[in-house]
């Protein structure tokens, strides 16, 4: 499989003049196409900073981030915006849907920003909605939907442009356990059927147990890596708990 994301010696330093915080201290890893990778770590371990750097919202101090071969740390202003809407998909903890627009329009928004042909917009939205089985809520406004439904709309928005990489920040953070399970199942379906590549940041071992591979972070560095391989989800979950315990329990 082709490598989608290649991070090398990534460093991020905040502050200056004697009050310096090293959020990332040289991180390197790869993500291949069709992989579902989780990043775990206690608060302050640098996992959100890592996600922000990869998503081009924050800029790295040193190191390189290659997405489909392009170094995003070298991109500027207009190029960044162009890159974000064509190559990346975002899923946020608090859904971040626009309350003035219907589910359908929220999904279509990602296409219109990417300057997708207007004539084909509706057809493409329906296609994605069918893949995630959300056709019946397309005409609803966010306020009329449950948290789980909103997050599935947000997922559809993230993949509608066929991005190289989908980035999710605590996607199940605001969901009850039943909705969380349904959402995680649909992430698996996105990987299996649509060959999406997902990088998810979480501190919840249950959410993480759906991943193919998990990167554990501590103090801005990669602590260890766990690969699911042929384990079933339960066995993988137990292994995650063990690592979290070693990490200091704080990550759970």
């Amino acid at each position: 499989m082709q490598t989608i994301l290649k991070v090398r010696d990534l460093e991020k330093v905040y502050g200056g003049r004697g009050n310096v915080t090293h959020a990332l201290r040289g991180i390197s890893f790869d993500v291949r196409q069709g992989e579902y990778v989780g990043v775990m770590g206690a608060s302050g371990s640098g996992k959100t900073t890592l996600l922000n750097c990869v998503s081009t919202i924050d800029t790295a101090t040193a190191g390189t981030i290659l997405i489909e071969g392009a170094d995003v740390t070298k991109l500027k202003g207009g190029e960044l915006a162009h890159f974000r809407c064509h190559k990346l998909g975002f899923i946020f903890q608090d859904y971040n849907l626009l309350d003035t627009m219907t589910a359908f329009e929220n999904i279509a928004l990602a296409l219109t920003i990417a300057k997708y042909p207007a004539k084909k917009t509706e057809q493409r939205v329906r296609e994605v909605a069918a893949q995630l089985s959300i056709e019946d809520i397309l005409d609803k406004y966010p306020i009329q939907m449950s948290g789980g439904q909103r997050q599935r709309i947000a997922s559809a928005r993230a993949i509608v442009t066929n991005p190289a990489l989908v980035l999710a920040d605590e996607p199940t953070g605001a969901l009850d356990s039943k909705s969380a399970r349904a959402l995680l199942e649909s992430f698996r379906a996105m990987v299996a059927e649509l060959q999406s590549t997902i990088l998810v940041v979480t501190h919840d071992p249950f959410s993480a147990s759906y991943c193919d591979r998990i990167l554990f972070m501590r103090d801005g560095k990669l602590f260890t890596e766990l690969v699911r391989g042929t384990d079933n989800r339960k066995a993988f979950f137990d292994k995650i708990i063990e690592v979290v315990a070693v990490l200091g329990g704080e990550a759970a």
Partner: protein
Amino acid sequence: MNPFTVAVRNVRKSFRDYGIYFLTVMLGVALFYIFNSINSQNIMVDLGRDELMKMVGVGRMMDTLSYFVVTILAFLILYANSFLIRRRKKEMGLYTILGMKKRKISSILMWETFLVGTLSLAVGLAIGVFLSQGMALLTAKIFGLSITRFAFSFSVDALYKSVKYFGITFLVVTAFNVINLNRQKLPELLYADKKTTQMVKLPLWASVTLFILSAGMLAAAYCLITGAGMNGFFEEARRWALEASILLGIAGTFLFFFALSGFFLKLISGIKRIYWKNLNAFTLKQINSKIHTTWISMSFVCLMLFLSLTTFSLGTSMSIAIRAYDVDETAAAVGVTYITTYIGIVFLISCASVLAVSQLSEASDNQTRYALLFKLGASSKMLASSVFKQNLIYFAAPLILAIVHAFVAVNVLSSMVNALATLNIFAMCVITGGVVVLIYGGYFLTTYRNARKTALREF
């Protein structure tokens, strides 16, 4: 920390929030001073004794008018203030939760109102004194009077009046704020920014029907008044037509803005190649929800703009006509010009301020929306263009309808004046248009720039 220090710091910190409030009060004060100071302006020296008496008459009229004007400005200041307070509720809640006594919070608020009030009053007066010198020269120029001696004029009377009336207004504002604060429960203060607005949606076919109905009502009103002409004012038999026309006009205007957003949306969302282009869908939905929630104030603004345009253009042309008819009536012409300009500009500024305040009050809600669009990959250019379109339509919609209203009204009214003297319609349009472009356009640009800055603040 003592309340005064906190107040000073708060005003300095939230200067941007206070900006539009400051601007409104400042312009109001300046205007108020200029028009109340006409009695003591040097230009009057050159007028004959009789004419001087007439000008004193104009001054008296100004006096009466001042009550009316100050009432309008007071409401305007209260309106701007209520938006300001809504923005700062959370801060007040935080003070409470940290254990500050309500009395102390009230005194912080009082000091803030006092500081901003004094500052804007002082600046407004300074501008007023400065501009009133130019006003005298301008009047002299327009009416071809020679200026024998020009000296700096300063009206103690106008100063006293401005301080008195605006002082009272600030007292009312302070009382309003303190009462408002004391009535609120803590959770209401803390979660003021987390409002859940459930939009009551009219089915699209209903808004289209209502829109067509409103257009019909307005057309009927125009026909009635044009048919009745000026005779409506004098002939008992025709009065019903005049009254019906006014009623239809007002009702039609309200219905127009009520149905406008739905109709507009229906129209554009049907054209897919426009709707799904760039941020158009987002922009339209923003405008839609804005008009949907503010259709009442938009209707009021439209009607006030109409009054402003009509008084202004008619006043200008009438004073020109009076002058052309009889040169000796210069003083009367000056009087007419002063009064109509005064009323016209006060209305115009009020309208523009209401629109600006209601547009900027949403800036922080919108900021999260723009931040999301930015993360999704919208460029700054796309965002700026969306902000521009939203502001433009919000400002233009009431103005356009008001211009149509005014066009009809001026046509009818000028037929009456035409009987006395020929009106210079062209001059009238140029002068009115110039003033509107300057004031209304200025407000629009300031609002747009401010909104754009807030939208793009993070990036």
